[in-house]
Structures are given as C-alpha cells and as structure tokens.
C-alpha cells in the first residue's frame, strides 16, 4: 500500500479512534438523562431547587470530563514515553490532534445529549445512538466511493455529505496531519484537500464538530426544558 512503520501504526490508531471514540461516547452518554429518568433519579434530584440549566449543563460538563480525560491522558502518556525515548516531540501535531479529538468528542457528546433529552427509555436511546453511529460510519470515504461514485452521484453532493460528517472530517484532518500523501485517505479526502489549504481544513475540522456538538446540546436543552421532566 506504499507506507509502513510509523505511518501504518498512526493510521491504525486514527482508524480505531474514528470507530471507537464516537460509539464509546454515544453509548456511555446517551443514557445520561434517559437513564436518570428511567430509574427515578431525575425525579428525586430535581426535587431540589436547582435550575434545569444547571442540571443539564452540569451533566454535560461532567460527562465531557469523563470521556475526554482518558483520551487526553493517553496522549500525555505517549508524549512522556516519546520524550523518555529521546524522540523529537511534534508539539504542533500534538496540539492539533488533541484539538481534533476535543472537537470529535464534543460533537458526539452533543448528539448523545440531544438523543437523551427526548427519548423515554434508555433502550430506545441506545438504539438511536447505535443507528446514528452506523450511518455516520457508513458515510466515511470508503462508502462514499464504493456506493455513491458507482451510482454516479453528483460530485458536489458527495463532497457535501463528506464535509457534513464529523467522523469523515476527523479522519481526513487527522491523517493529513501525519501524512497527506497517503492513498488510503480516499479520493474524497484528496478532493477536499485540493479544494482548500490544509490549515483552513484543520481549522474547519475543529470548529465544525464543536459547532455541531454545541447546536445539538442546545437543542437537547430546549427539548429537556420544554417537555415533561419525568
């Protein structure tokens, strides 16, 4: 495939992150509110004078710390290990990749809270979360190429779908940080990187998922506030 050693290892790590991190966040977070509702924790905890805003955003911050801290910790361990081994630490890549992980975590945390705010039971929440994950996973480059290009879909449509998918954006940005020449990135990724500079794309890759996460979290809060609490 034209690459080996560290690049292969990094690529594997990125691919695993794309698959594992979103589903880990969705599955562990989607039951935050619906689970509390199911087992009557919400009924008791909200009988004290705290605002719904405090409860909801407090939950989000708590969950974010829980899911993001292990990822950050793994990054720090890698840095320490590299430093001990005498390797030159690429700090710019470290901060950008940490930012990408932060943004990806935010996107799926927001989506998870959005789902959690309107479903009545944890089982339904899990089902929806899994469906969201599988759909987004299907629309990374591979599916875009194999299905959409074969079916002669409009190129711009393919590009828009790719750019709307936080998982695809993370994938392209993360791989491009390490090696933008890798062929496994796929044609859509090459097309995106040809359309804009890498710097602009990495900025979009951090800003867009963050925005998605915040929008879904706000929508979730609106629903949580305006419907029956238990």
């Amino acid at each position, binding site marked *: 495939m034209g690459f080996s050693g560290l690049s292969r290892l990094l690529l594997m790590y990125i691919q695993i992150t794309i698959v594992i991190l979103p589903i880990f966040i969705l599955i562990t977070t989607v039951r935050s509110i619906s689970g509390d509702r199911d087992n*009557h924790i919400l*009924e008791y905890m909200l009988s004290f*004078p705290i605002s719904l805003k405090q409860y909801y955003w407090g939950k989000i911050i708590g969950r974010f710390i829980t899911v993001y801290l292990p990822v950050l910790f793994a990054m720090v361990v890698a840095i320490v290990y590299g430093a001990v081994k005498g390797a030159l630490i690429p700090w710019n890549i470290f901060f950008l990749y940490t930012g990408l992980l932060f943004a990806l975590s935010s996107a799926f945390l927001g989506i998870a809270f959005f789902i959690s705010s309107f479903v009545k039971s944890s089982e339904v929440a899990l089902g929806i979360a899994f469906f969201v994950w599988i759909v987004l996973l299907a629309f990374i480059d591979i599916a875009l190429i194999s299905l959409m290009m074969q079916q002669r879909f409009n190129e711009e449509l393919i590009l828009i779908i790719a750019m709307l998918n936080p998982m695809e954006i993370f994938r392209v940005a993360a791989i491009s940080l390490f090696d933008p020449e890798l062929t496994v990135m796929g044609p859509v990724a090459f097309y995106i990187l040809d359309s804009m500079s890498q710097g602009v794309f990495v900025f979009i890759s951090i800003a867009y998922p963050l925005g998605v996460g915040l929008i879904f979290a706000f929508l979730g809060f609106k629903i949580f506030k305006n419907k029956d609490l238990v």
Partner: protein
Amino acid sequence: MIKISNLTKKFGAHISLDNVNCELNKNESIALMGANGAGKTTLIRSILGYYHPDGGEVLINGVNPIKNRMQVLQEISFVPQLPPPIKLSLYELMQYISISAKVDKELIEHYANEMKLDIKENMHKSFFKLSGGMKQKMLIAISLAKNSSIIIYDEPTANLDPKARDDFYRLLKQNEEEKVLLFVTHRLEEVKDLVNRQIYMDLGKVVWDEKA
C-alpha cells in the same frame, strides 16, 4: 398554600388528571389515597412542576412551579416511594443538597441520628449500596432538615421497620406546625393519627375530600 385549579394532564389518549380542583392549606396533614392509576403520582409530580399540564394550573403560594421552579422547590421536601439508585456517596449527596437547597449538613446528620442512621460510618459509601431501610431513613432525614413548608411523602414507611416508623412519626409530630404534609398512601391506618384530611382519587378525579 397549594392551589390546584382545573388541572388536566393527559398521556396520549389516557387522561391521568381530569379537571382536578383542590386547595391544600397550612396546618393540614393530608392522606392522598386511591387505587393504582388513580392519578396520585401525576398530581404530586404536577405540584413539583415536572409535568406541563394540558389544562388548568398549580400554584404554590401563588407561584407557578414550572416557571419558578427554584423558588417553589425551596418550599417543598419530597420523599419518593422507592429510594432511587443514586451513585453519589452520602457525603456527595449531602453536598449537593447543602449547595442546592442551602440545607445545613449537621441538621441532616441530626435527623439521621434521630432515625438511628449512623451517617458518619457510611459517609463515603454510595447511597445505592445502603439497605432499603437506610436509604429511606436518609431521605426522611434530608426532608426534615430541609425545613420546607410543604412535605410530600410517597409511601414513606414502605421500607421501614416498626421502630423506625415510630421514630419517623415522632419526628413528624415535632415538625408539622405551619406546614402542609401530604402523604400518598394505600394504608390509611398507618397515618391515621397524623392526618386531619383525607382525599380519595379515582380515574384522575378527586372523588372524596373529607376534613377531620
């Protein structure tokens, strides 16, 4: 204190509360009774501001519990029928209550001791790991320490042994003045000596309301 006017709550096609009108006043101890599905829990949850009514309203001291939930909930203590499986330790739970409702932690400890629950020994244990009786005692201690003008108990003695029930009734007697006590119960004989009003609900309506 609690004014319920033309309150209607539907869940899909099912009418859980059907045009309920009721006033609960200071110094009243009320037994709220009725068969399963009569609408007791829906009524309590409406008082706590959890449900958006389909018609009518609930006012607590003239204030809407949905629009001004923090102000209203400062005045209400609530103990559910089954203690929820809260993962917080007793210390963290007390911290949450102390910050949110400005309840003195020492007062919680005082009432817990009165209920024969040793908080200090269990301080760092998860709430859900306590026995059913211990959890119920803790929730009762919190409800009393909060010193609210409205106390709502949903089958509060379900998990308590006879001695703990006696402690609970004794503490309630000491704390009932100038308050509204609302007991949801299926066993009137248990709270008969405490209550001075009985409300019976059926099919979402108040069908019987008698003051002693």
